[in-house]
């Protein structure tokens, strides 16, 4: 079967610049989203995720301009997230050239937003993002606002609800693993993936090639997202894909 697992680099964008990036030897400006996006496309990235981490949200124009510039030059699917609060934000980003928009806290505050957006412009445009943390109750719970706010919502139930409300795919970030390089939370991923019909993107914890394989095999993820291992060139996208291919996972090479 030619169903391939997707490898997705995530770029943090602050005020129109890529942050946490290191210099790839052959690009002039590691902070330029267009140059970095082009580089990832050439390396074989299957999609790109741009996360707007600008602390001040008074001016959303910067990320819109960034998306527009990237979409003029790079022709692989582009997902944009971070601070998306309503239908108009989604439309503005799609109009700028984003293919999908990730919604996180806004969906928890107003779940009908998912139905509203997907019924008007289609499920394929909406990536529902969940930040989940294992709690002392023995279940994973949903956190919002960049992980600062505990909602008390059961992450597994929330994933099913987002699926039923029409989300096109789920981006699942384990807050226990994010930034640790200890590997993805495969129990969380598997629990969600076996309960939903839409694709699941694994996020949080990538540190080794084996971690990527485990997310796909044990976590049953359809796509794997990583930031620092690509930015700091611990592995290239080619290396990840070669490794997965040798382990029997279908990838686009």
């Amino acid at each position, binding site marked *: *079967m*030619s*169903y*391939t*697992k*997707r490898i997705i680099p995530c770029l943090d964008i602050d005020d129109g610049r890529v942050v946490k990036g290191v210099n790839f030897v052959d690009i002039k400006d590691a902070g330029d989203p267009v140059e970095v996006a082009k580089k990832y*496309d050439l390396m074989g990235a*299957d999609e790109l995720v741009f996360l707007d981490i600008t602390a001040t949200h008074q001016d959303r124009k910067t990320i819109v301009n960034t998306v527009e510039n990237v*979409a*003029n*030059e790079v*022709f*692989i*699917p582009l997902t944009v997230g971070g601070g998306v609060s309503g239908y108009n934000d989604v439309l503005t980003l*799609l*109009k*700028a*050239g984003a*293919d999908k928009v990730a919604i996180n806290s806004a969906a928890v505050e107003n779940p009908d937003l998912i139905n509203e957006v997907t019924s008007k*412009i*289609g*499920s*394929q*445009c909406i990536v529902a993002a969940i930040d989940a943390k294992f709690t002392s109750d023995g279940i994973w719970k949903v956190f919002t606002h960049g992980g600062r706010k505990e909602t008390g919502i059961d992450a597994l139930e929330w994933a099913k609800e987002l699926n039923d409300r029409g989300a*096109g*795919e789920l981006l699942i970030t384990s807050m226990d693993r994010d930034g640790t390089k200890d590997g993805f939370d495969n129990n969380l991923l598997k629990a969600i993936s*076996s309960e939903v*019909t*839409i*694709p699941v993107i694994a996020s949080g914890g990538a540190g080794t090639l084996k971690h990527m394989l485990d997310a796909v095999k044990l976590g049953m993820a*359809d*796509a794997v997202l990583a930031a620092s291992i690509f930015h700091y060139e611990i592995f290239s996208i080619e290396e990840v894909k070669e490794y997965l291919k040798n382990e029997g996972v279908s990838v*686009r090479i």
Partner: protein
Amino acid sequence: MSKISVIDYGMGNIHSVAKALQKVCGKEHKVVISNSIKEIKSSDKIVFPGQGAARLCMDNLRNKFNLVEFRELISQKPFLGICMGLQILMTFSEEDNTECLDIFNGRVEQIQSSNGQIKLPHMGWSKVNFTKDHSLRDQIGNDSFFYFVHSYYVSTPSREDIMSFTEYGCKFISSLQKDNILAVQFHPEKSSTAGLKLLSNFINWRV
């Protein structure tokens, strides 16, 4: 300077499509996004991207255009349908039991999820196996990867119209071609080098 119209009927990622076309056209051609039948008629080539549900798509088309006139338009000049822009060219879609434009003889059916073994929508990169030789696939390797997002696929008894197949759960038709029409299930505008090549071949296509 020739003109390429991207049909705007209120849905779909028309901006991505227009950007990709402009990229491959360079300055020799003008890409316009339009819902004016007059403007579309005056263009040299027509691109029809589609997203969303079949019935909604047909309703939107009916609201914006006269369907008889629209069908004539499709038959006159090089026409590229993308994703839902392929599906509504068929006779009938099982999605909400929708009567479609009947440009190609055939139906649109849902991909079977095989008891949850197959995720829907089919979202990601899959190989396109071309079964027809055509200038539209010049310099595109057979079994090149293209990006897909869909839950339904087309079927037709007219074997001669089939341009390629792809596998996802089952083997399905991923593009159709006849006369002046090319229609693809995948998104060339999001398929990196292979996708841009296909768009460029379409731009250079002389019917």
